[in-house]
């Protein structure tokens, strides 16, 4: 298991480097000056400083190296300083946002909790709905429940978050007036009343995000369950007189969880992608909204860092999927590649 885990972890290094390279190359290949969009009010000497911080004028591989150094060494050290109170990164150049004129990471850390809270909640809700739906659909294949489930899944696939979000606002905020359409991140939970307010404002974004998760996941669960319910050991379990619940949950579900867990892990980054749009609709000032405003403002360091962080999440999710896969299925860690 250990060597399997190490092999998976080792693959993450080239993946991260590749992503960094793609991001860097995008900026490099982009014709024109990345600083051309900056407002004219910035004084020339500040402009020269910003050029120096970007490293414009040096050759590409040196700039790439410097950027990697900032990304992988300076920023983590700065994070450690913040957490532990040391000063390892005190005198090194950190990545500076062009909008806030402060370190990029500080802004990201401010925005991260909102995104994690909404996205995480949506994901948990989605998984909790999808698993039972998938299992029941598979057990009663071709029943009304199954067909309705398939239809809802198709709709979940086809209705993009930017439409389901708008639709949810029209129905629940405009027509019925039940729920607020704007997520207020300054809201503090202090007592029962403020807790219900927080709950109410989370309902719509979580609902929109989890619709997609549910659609995908319930479909996978159904397929995996159908697969394992037709296996010989399930027939054996039935033949020796186990109750249907024990067969379905103990033999069927347990074996179909292997692919499902992978999908759960791999789907998480996608939800972050969807969160960019959902945050825009419900005005959550999270990471996605930060990315959009940074893109509109031409704030390259911010854009680079957030995109890279999202890519890191994809890679981490991949590793997590592979590791759980190995944990659940001994055959995989014995062979080399799944």
């Amino acid at each position, binding site marked *: 298991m250990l060597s399997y885990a190490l092999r998976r972890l080792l693959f993450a290094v080239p993946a991260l480097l590749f992503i960094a390279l793609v991001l860097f190359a995008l900026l490099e290949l982009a014709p024109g000056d990345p600083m051309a969009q900056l407002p004219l009010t910035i004084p020339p000497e500040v402009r020269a400083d910003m050029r120096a911080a970007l490293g414009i004028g040096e050759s590409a591989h040196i700039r790439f190296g410097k950027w990697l150094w900032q990304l992988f060494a300076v920023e983590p050290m700065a994070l450690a300083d913040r957490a532990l109170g040391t000063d390892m990164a005190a005198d090194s150049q950190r990545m500076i946002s062009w909008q806030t004129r402060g370190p990029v990471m500080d802004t990201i850390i401010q925005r991260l909790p909102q995104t994690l809270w909404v996205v995480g909640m949506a994901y948990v809700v989605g998984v909790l709905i999808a698993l039972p739906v998938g299992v029941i659909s598979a057990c009663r294949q071709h029943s009304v429940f199954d067909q309705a489930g398939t239809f809802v899944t198709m709709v979940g696939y*086809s209705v993009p978050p930017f439409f389901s979000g708008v639709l949810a606002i029209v129905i629940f905020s405009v027509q019925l007036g039940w729920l607020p359409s704007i997520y207020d991140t300054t809201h503090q939970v202090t007592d029962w009343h403020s807790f219900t307010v927080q709950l109410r404002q989370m309902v719509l974004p979580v609902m929109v995000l989890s619709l997609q998760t549910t659609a995908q996941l319930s479909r996978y669960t159904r397929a995996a369950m159908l697969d394992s319910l037709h296996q010989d050991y399930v027939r054996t379990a039935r033949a020796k007189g186990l109750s249907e619940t024990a067969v379905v949950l103990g033999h069927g579900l347990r074996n179909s969880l292997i692919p499902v867990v992978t999908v759960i892990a791999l789907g998480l980054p996608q939800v972050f992608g969807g969160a960019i749009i959902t945050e825009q609709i419900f005005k959550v000032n999270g990471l996605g909204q930060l990315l959009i405003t940074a893109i509109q403002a031409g704030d390259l360091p911010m854009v680079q860092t957030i995109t890279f962080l999202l890519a890191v999440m*994809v890679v981490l999710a991949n590793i997590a999927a592979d590791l759980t896969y190995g944990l659940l299925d001994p055959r995989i860690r014995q062979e080399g590649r799944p």
Partner: protein
Amino acid sequence: MTLLSPPRPGHTVWRRFRRHRGAVAGAAVLGFLVLAVLLGPWLWSLDPTYIDVRARSAGPSPAHPLGTDQLGRDMLARLLAGGRVSIAVGLAAMAVSLGLGTLIGVLAGFFRRLDSLLMRLTDLFLALPVIPLVLVAVMLFREPLNHSFGPQAGIFVLVVLAIGLTSWMPTARVVRGAVLELKEREFILAARGIGTPDAAIITRHVLPNVASPILVSAALGTANAILTESALSFLGLGFPPDFPTWGRLLSDATVYLQDYPGRALWPGGLICLTVLGVNYLGDGLRDAFDIRGDAR
């Protein structure tokens, strides 16, 4: 005396496809939408960019069956024009990603030496966050492409390339799997035995036989491309405002959501309908070709 001829494969596929009710319905809806946006300018001759300030934000009337927007532009004409762009982007991006995916899939499946390298590359591309990357690409390349192609063609090329270059990986994987399986079959060995060059084996024997998984991923790829384009337009980083697409219309309408919800529902509904139709079509094709694929 006539011999009983075995049923032609195309015939079987068509029969199975017809039995899948969802797929037939999806194909019908899709055909109707495509026909409508193609023939739209002849059926409904109002100019989608004509501004009629006196009729702004009007409700449905014989002159404007779906009403007008905040500048008095006819919604029906804008929807038809937007659909043309959205569907064109979807098809073009699908073509790019399909071409690339097929090329890489066939190369990886056919030539053992390239396999691990190309599949590693595919894995790496799968780790890229698509929407943020496409957003960044649009932000960086919009101006220069506008200068060289003009504002509309420039953004069209950009969006199509950005989506196509980040979505070829599933196709490559599926095609590689099919080619690997195919490569050991007798007729390929026979072709190789009589000295057919690799290029001819690929074009004459391999490609026709992997056509069905390619067709299925073409359907799903189109749906994905339309969704991504709409998401870009919705975030304000797609086509320019005076150049309607469904996503753009939806995004413009969200500002007036409280007063005119219908204006957001039409483009959004059409996006969903198109994607739903394409997805059902892909599902039906998969069943008809009898491909055991993952549930994507």
